[in-house]
């Protein structure tokens, strides 16, 4: 049974067709890439899966749950973690608070507990802090616990964001251009990090990336999107040699 099944997904921005008949099946513990030129609709696909946009047609199911028509917070609570193209950490809140708040769907206490400081709330807060610290420890982020994200180096911010996306114990991790704006050294670290995350947390990783070094190195399977529709699908090697992909990226060969 596939973990995520996207079927005939189509989406219009007004009259513009941004995603056209997109199909995908992700199984457990896979690492799949989604590439394509700028404006091909990659991030739109992610936003459709997360429920930020409502598809015009098609179905999305995750772990046998239909995702269409649900609110984004319900969808991500089912176990989908996600990072953003331009890092979207909460910059007014410390790193530890960033992780704690991502626990929102997991806190058991009710509103009144938080208002009246009940023992249930204290116990739960303790649990949340403990889990957050454990996770930060795994990512070697403990020295930055009290820092505001905006004061941290770019690479660290990326790491915090991936760490935050793992808080809801996801089965599926969506990484939207994690290597954007990184130098070669940082990209090398990122490649190792993504591989480690996939094995350590037993997640399926679905990654959008422009850096071919990342994609070709880590993905088991790649889909290429152009003008909203899939133009190629296969292993990194197949994609590299696919004339359609070369055409989409580089234009037609002059004869």
């Amino acid at each position, binding site marked *: 049974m596939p973990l995520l099944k996207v079927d005939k997904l189509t989406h219009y921005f007004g009259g513009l067709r941004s995603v056209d008949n997109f199909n995908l099946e992700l199984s457990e513990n896979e690492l799949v890439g989604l590439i394509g030129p700028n404006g091909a609709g990659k991030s739109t696909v992610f936003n459709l899966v997360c429920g930020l946009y409502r598809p015009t047609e098609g179905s999305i199911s995750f772990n046998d749950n239909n995702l269409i028509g649900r609110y*984004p917070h319900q969808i991500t609570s089912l176990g989908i973690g996600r990072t953003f193209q331009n890092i*979207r950490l*909460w910059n007014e*809140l410390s790193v530890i608070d960033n992780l704690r708040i991502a626990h929102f769907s997991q*806190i058991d206490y009710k509103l009144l507990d*938080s208002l009246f400081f009940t023992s249930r709330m204290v116990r739960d*807060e303790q649990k949340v802090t403990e889990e957050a610290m454990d996770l930060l420890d795994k990512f070697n982020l403990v020295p930055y616990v009290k820092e505001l994200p905006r004061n941290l180096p770019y690479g660290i911010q990326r790491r915090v964001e991936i760490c935050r996306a793992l808080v809801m114990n996801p089965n599926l991790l969506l990484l939207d251009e994690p290597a954007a704006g990184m130098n070669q050294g940082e990209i090398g670290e990122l490649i190792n990090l993504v591989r480690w995350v996939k094995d350590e947390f037993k997640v399926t990783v679905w990654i959008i990336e422009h850096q071919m070094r990342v994609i070709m190195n880590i993905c088991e399977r790649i889909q290429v999107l152009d003008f909203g529709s899939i133009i190629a699908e296969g292993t990194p090697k197949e994609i590299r040699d696919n004339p359609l992909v070369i055409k989409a990226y580089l234009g037609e060969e002059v004869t």
Partner: protein
Amino acid sequence: MKRFGMPALIGISFLICIVPSWLGWFSNYIQFIITLIGINIILTVSLNLINGYMGEFSVGHAAFMGVGAYTSSLLTVYLLTENPFFGKAILPEELSILIFPISLLIGGVAAALFSLLIAIPSFRTRGDYLAIVTLAVNFIFKSAVENIDAIGGPRGFMGMGKVVKAMDNLVSFPWLIFWTFLVVVFSIFIIRNFVNSTMGKSIVAIRDDEIASELMTVNTRWLKIVAFMLSCGLAGVAGGLHAHTVTFINPSSYFILQSTYILVMVYLGGMGSLSGSVISAIVFTILLELLRPLDVWRWVATPLLLIILMLFRPTGIMGSRELLDVFPKLKKYFSSLQERLTNAFIKS
């Protein structure tokens, strides 16, 4: 380290505010000012939850205050006193001590329910929408009350003085200051707990980046409505206290001028700073009183002071910091649960 800071602070302010009033050391005027300060603290702290922590812009706090004021004073006057509006009293005066806090609570609930009506459509979108709607709420409230002749319409409503006097006759005690004090402590207590819990702190995350919050499993719509209701409910309770303090209310008491005052106090104190709100409510109320001799020129002097403040300190007195961030040495007496937990785990 024991956190005796909060109880000590509450005890000291209790001694300063209530005991002298009880013993009759404070004149009625000073007692009135103390009550007013307390009411303004409740209003400022509660509005700060929306405008400061949540980053929405509500300009209709006075209307919610007015709903609470009218609800609770209608209740007490209807039940406890003989008056031109409803005729004979229904319950004996002796029950006033009990009925008064209950009516405050009902006023708060009424304001919260009213705010729910506003919140459901307003929070579908982000941005200026809430500001426009709450601006309209000021007018809705005023016009609505003005057109209900049974409660005085534009002429206003009175009779709360008798209720307060009845309480005083029964047991000589500064009841109004006492209840105001309790509500102030209660408001600060719950709002501080709320914004220091994972659940409540999520409203700061919403201010920072709503889409990221939604995708990090935060139920933003529910949380925004809950925070708004909480804030407006407290404003309703403050309104009830205000109505019984001034003993005469009319629809214009809870119009845009009052809303503006509350806004000014929030921005004066600093967005997202509870201690800032408390300080600014105290400072602003006292300032307004000190400027009373200027008469009409007060409305020139006060804005001028605000302009000067905004020029030299645009973030307000405290900015988004708390008093504790300014005096970190005090932290061990006051630190919040989350801070303590974090520190405990860092050490281990």
